[in-house]
């Protein structure tokens, strides 16, 4: 297959089709519109359902219904719209329903702007909704990775019966990059897999199924939570994904994900030319955060630097991994600012050669 040039939003849509997604509901919002546009015709071509919902609330609950019915289902939005989906996400997690939710983050808070941002990290990784639940969060850094992680997202969602979030930003969504895409042209009309015995499709030959999250009986909800926490423990041990770059011989390890990691990667390659021993640890799953894997690096490297397009959110997870063993620095830009290579290199120098200048990042 030859590569083609495609933007991240559309690639996610095509990857979803490829993964057997037969239901998409969404409400327009920049910078994820290309995905909604794409699905508006592609779902029909693929024999699935596209609904332009009246709101994000409607969209997530349409997806809840489709998922309850056994379909692979997806919705997408950007920051403010994702905030509106929080109740629905909490319900889906509690009902143990799979689904893929795409958040192409934009500058916030409030209406903010449509520039790239990573300030919904807390919301995505800690559960912006109510109650003790988590969503698996995948953070692609290239269009090609978006192709792969979207398919993975559907598999993980089904495997764990839990919503999975793809977290990107306007750069990932709108940028075109070469990618090898396999277009599948026909999908099964109803992709209710035999291996979803819990799904609702009429109780022929079995006891009725119930999809619910209300548990009023003494201890019942505690039991659901126990089951969910066990699942989450399993995910935490099995599913952390990350990429390391030069972490073997680095005095300073930069932790960055998604779009930011691209810029960090390039800054590092320049810094290495200047003989600065700096490497990168790139979490691919933001939840589960690759805590143990990062923890290991605390032995080797002298310091850590977290670079985010936010006021500092992932920095909590890095601190929780390193637990005071090494200094952790932070450099971020909030509200849609994109860190430049130059600025990152400067920070690297400040940390590794503190004589040259004295600034504190924390």
């Amino acid at each position, binding site marked *: 297959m030859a590569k*083609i040039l495609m933007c991240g939003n559309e690639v996610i849509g095509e990857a979803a089709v490829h993964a057997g997604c037969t239901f998409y509901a969404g409400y327009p919002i920049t910078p994820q519109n290309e995905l909604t546009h794409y699905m508006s015709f592609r779902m029909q071509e693929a024999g699935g359902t596209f609904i332009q919902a009246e709101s994000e609330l409607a969209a997530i609950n349409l997806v809840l219904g489709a998922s309850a019915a056994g379909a692979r289902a997806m919705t997408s939005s950007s920051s403010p719209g994702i905030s509106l989906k929080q109740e629905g996400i909490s319900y889906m997690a509690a009902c143990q329903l799979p689904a893929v939710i795409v958040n192409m983050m934009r500058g916030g808070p409030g209406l903010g702007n449509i520039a790239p941002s990573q300030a919904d990290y807390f919301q995505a990784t800690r559960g912006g909704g109510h109650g003790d639940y988590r969503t698996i969060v995948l953070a692609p850094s290239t269009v090609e990775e978006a192709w792969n992680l979207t398919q993975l997202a559907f598999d993980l969602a089904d495997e764990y019966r839990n919503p999975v979030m793809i977290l990107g930003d306007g*750069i990932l969504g*709108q940028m075109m*990059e070469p990618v090898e895409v396999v277009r599948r042209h026909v999908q099964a009309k109803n992709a209710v897999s035999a291996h979803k015995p819990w799904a609702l499709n009429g109780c022929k030959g079995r006891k009725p199924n119930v999809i619910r999250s209300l548990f009023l009986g003494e201890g019942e909800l505690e039991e659901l939570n126990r089951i969910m926490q066990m699942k989450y423990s399993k995910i935490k041990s099995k599913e952390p994904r990350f990429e390391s770059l030069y972490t073997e011989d680095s005095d300073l390890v930069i932790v960055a994900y998604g779009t930011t990691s691209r*810029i960090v*990667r*390039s*800054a590092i390659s320049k810094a290495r030319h200047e003989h600065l021993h700096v490497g990168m640890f790139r979490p691919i799953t933001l939840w589960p955060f690759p805590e143990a894997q990062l923890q290991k690096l605390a032995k080797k490297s002298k310091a850590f630097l977290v670079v985010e397009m936010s006021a500092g959110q992932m920095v909590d997870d890095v601190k929780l991994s390193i637990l005071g063993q090494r200094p952790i620095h932070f450099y971020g830009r909030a509200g849609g600012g*994109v860190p430049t290579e130059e600025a990152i290199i400067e920070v690297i120098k400040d940390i590794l050669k503190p004589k040259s200048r004295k600034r504190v990042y924390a």
Partner: protein
Amino acid sequence: MKEEIIFAGFGGQGIMVMGKVLAWAAMKEGLKVTWMPSYGAEVRGGTAHSMVVISDEMVPSPVVTSPTACVVMNRPSMDRYEDSLAPSGTLIVNESLIDRQPSRGDIDVLKIPVTKMATDMGNTRIANMIALGALNAKLKLVSMRALVDALKEVIPPDKHDLLPMNEQALKEGARLVARQ
């Protein structure tokens, strides 16, 4: 090698297409490439721009803040991007619509009346391809063959009758640079 290019002009001048054709061509030649549309400040109207980064290494950010080359198709674009151009960068100016002179002395300026040329060739819409042809020739980015191939990918099949005219425009642009 790394080129960071901004194409800018009005909506309707084919600004997105210009970038996409170059990006496709670069990809076909095995280079790393990103293309990125306008984002951020604009709500409606104003100038549109697209950004292409071509490199032999993985492209860090597709967002170009200090371009190595810039194609400005109208006056507001020139006003907006001239200053951001990297030192000794290349500025392709659509002379037909831009009355003022570039103010910087440390850049390489190429003025072409692409709109007029396009009109003369029979279709104002191909001004973008003249400019792209010129830019490519000037910077020696990709082969003409790759550009022509790329046209087929970017122009939707139902408009493929326009391919020859676009190809001609690319070549016209390139010729112009060669002549200089």
